[in-house]
């Protein structure tokens, strides 16, 4: 058994070491050829690895081994590494800091160390594989983005734990760690999507002219602002789906007239937002996708069993695979850059899906749906006895003031109540009710209406971190506190 004094000293020294590691890594990311921070990284990681093993901090030791693997690979690449790699190193360092900071004998609920290590292994494997040319570059980029999204999700839970720990003991070091983690996990501010999509109108007209096709283009875009990854997915989708429609869907005027259609084709681009979902449709009245041809191509490529009964949805999914191309659709539209495979990957990375509705002879409708919950919500805000941190509940919950007896002290329920935080008899009870769920929470006074903006959310967590009237606080999920 190691004396507590040595363990405590180890924790202090190691947190300082992590600060040096993080600073050295940041320096290398901006000046990759500077030998001084490279030496610091190698030395500090190595010492931390030895220390953590000897004092029995096996979880920190495991992360140290992974960090050394990452640093060695980065060194081989002369510290020219991608965003995902940078994030993996940064998160490994911060994870270790959280593990070192946690109170002895406590669990950090929600930190999934094996899962995070698995993610690091994924980043390592991906980086080692990077030069292999078997996957189109764009698809590869989005595969990595999906991995990064998974890392972010894991870290979100750690960030919430850290924020809660701060409520108990707001030391400067914890505050700095929270600020650092918040930067990693908080969503980027939303941007208006309209300008990104409507800019493709001019390019589409030029392409139609080049192809000798008569087209009426209609853009009808809801004025919404969404996070950058969703903007990027929609941007790519409009670019490639419109090009595809012009190149492969819309027939030349004479062919259209022969088929009994108007010589001028219609390509309609529409973006609507409803019920927390963005829906982009790109519709043309061209020749439509020949799904018999898609099926034949799928069989020829070994992607389909020749005897299987395959539906249109499954055939449609083939169109978004790398390298899949027919006369009706092309994954690389006439050599003009990347194609539907990149659209599929970008939409998936943003959490959405693409479907195609074919009407042979009449046209094609592509539908991209991406969930995009509004980040700003109406909320009921109150304070609990013993804390200045604002607490909020979605205004979708009905609220009434009731006697305090039996009310749940939120900080106690979250395991961060300090001594004396449950002051019996003080304050009021707030009964929150939605559907059949009813919960009474202890409040210092009456609630007010305000708006809250989600900052950090994690699946299954009883709280999110939100900015409530300009102040960081907790957005409570009452059903999880009952």
């Amino acid at each position, binding site marked *: 058994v*190691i*004396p507590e004094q040595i363990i405590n000293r*180890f924790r202090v020294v190691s947190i300082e070491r992590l600060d040096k590691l993080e600073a050295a890594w940041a320096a290398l990311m901006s000046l990759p050829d500077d030998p001084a921070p490279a030496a610091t990284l190698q030395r500090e990681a190595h*010492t931390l690895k030895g*220390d953590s*093993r*000897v*004092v029995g901090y096996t979880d920190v030791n495991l992360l140290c081994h992974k960090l050394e693997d990452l640093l060695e690979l980065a060194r081989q690449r002369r510290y020219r590494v991608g965003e995902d790699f940078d994030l993996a190193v940064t998160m490994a360092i911060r994870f270790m800091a959280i593990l070192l900071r946690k109170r002895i004998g406590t669990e950090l609920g929600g930190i999934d160390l094996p899962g995070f290590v698995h993610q690091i292994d994924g980043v390592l494997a991906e980086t080692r594989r990077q030069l292999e040319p078997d996957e189109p570059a764009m698809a590869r980029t989005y595969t990595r983005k999906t991995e990064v999204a998974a890392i972010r999700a894991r870290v979100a839970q750690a960030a919430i734990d850290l924020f809660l720990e701060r409520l108990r003991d707001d030391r400067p070091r914890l505050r700095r760690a929270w600020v650092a983690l918040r930067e990693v996990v908080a969503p980027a501010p939303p941007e208006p999507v309209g300008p990104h999509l409507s800019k493709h109108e001019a390019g589409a007209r030029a392409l139609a002219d080049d192809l000798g096709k008569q087209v009426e283009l209609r853009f009808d875009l809801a004025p919404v602002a969404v996070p950058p990854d969703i903007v990027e997915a929609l941007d790519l989708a409009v670019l490639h789906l419109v090009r595809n429609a012009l190149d492969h869907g819309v027939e030349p005027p004479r062919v259209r007239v022969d088929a009994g259609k108007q010589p001028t084709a219609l390509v309609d681009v529409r973006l609507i937002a409803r019920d927390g979902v963005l829906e982009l449709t790109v519709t043309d009245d061209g020749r439509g996708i020949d799904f018999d041809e898609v099926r034949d191509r799928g069989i020829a490529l070994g992607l389909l069993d020749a005897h299987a009964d395959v539906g249109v949805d499954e055939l449609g999914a083939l169109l978004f695979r790398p390298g899949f191309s027919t006369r009706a659709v092309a994954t690389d539209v006439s050599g003009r850059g990347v194609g539907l495979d990149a659209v599929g990957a970008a939409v998936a990375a943003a959490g959405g899906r693409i479907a195609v509705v074919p009407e042979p002879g009449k046209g094609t409708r592509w539908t991209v749906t991406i969930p995009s919950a509004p980040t700003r919500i109406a909320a009921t805000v109150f304070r609990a006895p013993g804390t200045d941190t604002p607490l909020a509940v979605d205004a979708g919950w009905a609220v009434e003031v009731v006697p305090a007896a039996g009310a749940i002290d939120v900080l106690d329920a979250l395991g961060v109540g300090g001594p004396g935080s449950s002051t019996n008899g003080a304050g009021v009870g707030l009964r929150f009710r939605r559907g059949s769920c009813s919960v009474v929470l202890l409040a210092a006074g009456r609630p007010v209406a305000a708006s809250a903006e989600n900052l950090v959310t994690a699946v299954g967590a009883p709280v999110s971190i939100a900015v409530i009237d300009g102040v960081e606080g907790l957005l409570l999920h009452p059903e999880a506190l009952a």
Partner: protein
Amino acid sequence: VTAAARRILVVDDSEIILAAVTDALGGAGFAVTAVGDLAGLEAVAQQSFDLVLMDVQMPQLYGDDVAAVLRHDRRMAGRIYLFSSLSADELAERARDAGLDGYLSKNDGLEALVSRVTSILTD
């Protein structure tokens, strides 16, 4: 011979390693001297030790180079082992190249260290 008669010198730039190893080996009855840098090593170089545990990667010098000097120039009589978290292969090679008695891996933990040291010194 009792453990208390056995003198062990630990050279490591990590104060945590020095504290933890001193505590563990001291608890097992050995007399442990811990030094963290070359100046500290010079100060105790005239004393005799039954076993030296030498870290490899230190800011001023490599431990295997220091150990080679102790062994071959200073004619240190006791056993000298490298003590590091480098891989076993690398440690074995460094210990062999420097003409030392062997290596102990930090990756095996403190309990393994105490039992290895005990067995080395009771051979």
